[in-house]
């Protein structure tokens, strides 16, 4: 049996409802958040559209090289405050 090239996301990451999202619209810069995929990040910008925030990784268990890099996090990517 051939190996699946694109395995589905891990159960831990995938088990959330489509409505299971944080209200991120008012998160100020400097807020520390925990991400659904694991890891911790700091909010560095907020367009206040309720959908996205700019983040910088503080911890990234799957890929430590990303620590310090910047990214966008979607509302369903955020599971809580640190």
């Amino acid at each position, binding site marked *: 049996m051939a190996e699946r090239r694109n395995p589905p*996301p891990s159960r831990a990451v995938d088990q959330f409802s489509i409505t299971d999202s944080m209200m991120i619209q008012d998160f100020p810069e400097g807020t520390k958040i925990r991400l659904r995929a694991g890891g911790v990040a700091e909010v560095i*910008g907020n367009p206040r559209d309720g959908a996205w925030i*700019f983040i910088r990784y503080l911890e990234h268990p799957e890929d430590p090289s990303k620590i310090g890099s910047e990214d966008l996090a*979607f509302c369903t990517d955020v599971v809580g405050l640190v």
Partner: protein
Amino acid sequence: MVHISRSRQDRSLRDLVDWEQGHVSREIYVNEDIYQQELEQIFGRAWLFVGHESQVPNPGDFFQSRMGEESVLLVRDRKGELHVFLNTCRHRGMKVCRYDEGNSLLFTCPFHGWSYDTDGRLVGVPNFQTAYRGELDKSAWGLHEVAQMSNFYGSIWATWDPKAPSFEDFLGAFVPSLRRSFEGSDGGDNGLEFFSPVQKWRLPTNWKFPGFSFAGDHAHGAMTHRSTTVAAFGPQGELAGGDRHGVPSRWASTEYEMSIPALGHGGHGRIYEQPGVGPYVETWQTVLQADDYYHEMRDKKAEKYAGQYLHGVSGCVFPNVICGGSRILLWHPHGVGVTESWRFYTVDKGAPKPVKDAQRRYMMRYCGPGGMTESDDMENWNYAYPASLGTVARRLDYNFQNGVGHAYADDRVPGFTLNYRIGEENQRSRLRRWLDFMEAGSWDELSPAKR
């Protein structure tokens, strides 16, 4: 690509527009197929006015504009660069911005959440790592940007056609005239700012009624605008018999119809008999601070242009915009029988607030949806269109014969064709260029330099 129903081969489109003899079929104003062809052949290829840099002064500022029927965003990105994007998400087409203007770090589609940076890059795709497995090539799905953009002394123009000539080549001999349209009243380049917001309203008429007649139809003034002249509501009151435009200078000059037939640009022009800028004519008697300000600016302009002839024209940049006289008039096609009319009002960047207020109030009572002159004009445009729709009516031609055969060149305004000031030379020029665009397969045929 829209099917071109009236092709170059059968010459039938040319049969509808005989600009040389001044016979123009009403079909070109009322026919749905021809309208669809205009969107493709004209608005898909010509340089179009988008806005002004003063509308987006800061990083993240945006202004929602239009090109033809389509919404576009004029955006200053976070590095300060200007862009013009089609306002549609690349995922499923939703508008990524529904505000007229503002400031934003991102343009986030409200449908599924695809999100674009201010430079147009697709930067956010929900569930990118999970559902998309990280495989979506974000670099290929950014906002669709215009093929070319030009910042012409603060005014922003764009075209969808990568093969279009430069904006300056598109303008040809009209460059100096348009440059002066964006001068401050002291003669300084890029001296204007735009008032916000823009006035927008829809007219039940074809876009060419206003677009091809404005600043090219001096004959209508005495009849259509008689009431405004009687009311003497112009900037100088009853001076010059209450003329609605006012008197720019008391120096001897002659007004003409001036156009560039091969390019379609043109308007009402004036040739002075001496160089320089004439003395200030009292204009703002009811707002003394404005009168003092404009008098001072006039003197500065006179210093700048001492010894130079300021012949020229304010008028139409083909196909659908008029620039000059402290306003930009823009007529967007919005269906064969609907025109979305936009008015931008301008003022000197450095003018004191009372002067800006006086200027804004004057322009609002002069033109726009509540202005006296355009209320007059709309009566004509809005009734001429339905009166041209009927089965019998549309068999008839419009008459554009005023001044046919009497145009001439004048060395004082190279590149322009002149005719008597009350005529239809400008309208024939726009119709000629309209026909060029409708027939031409590419810019290789449209660019006079390549003819």
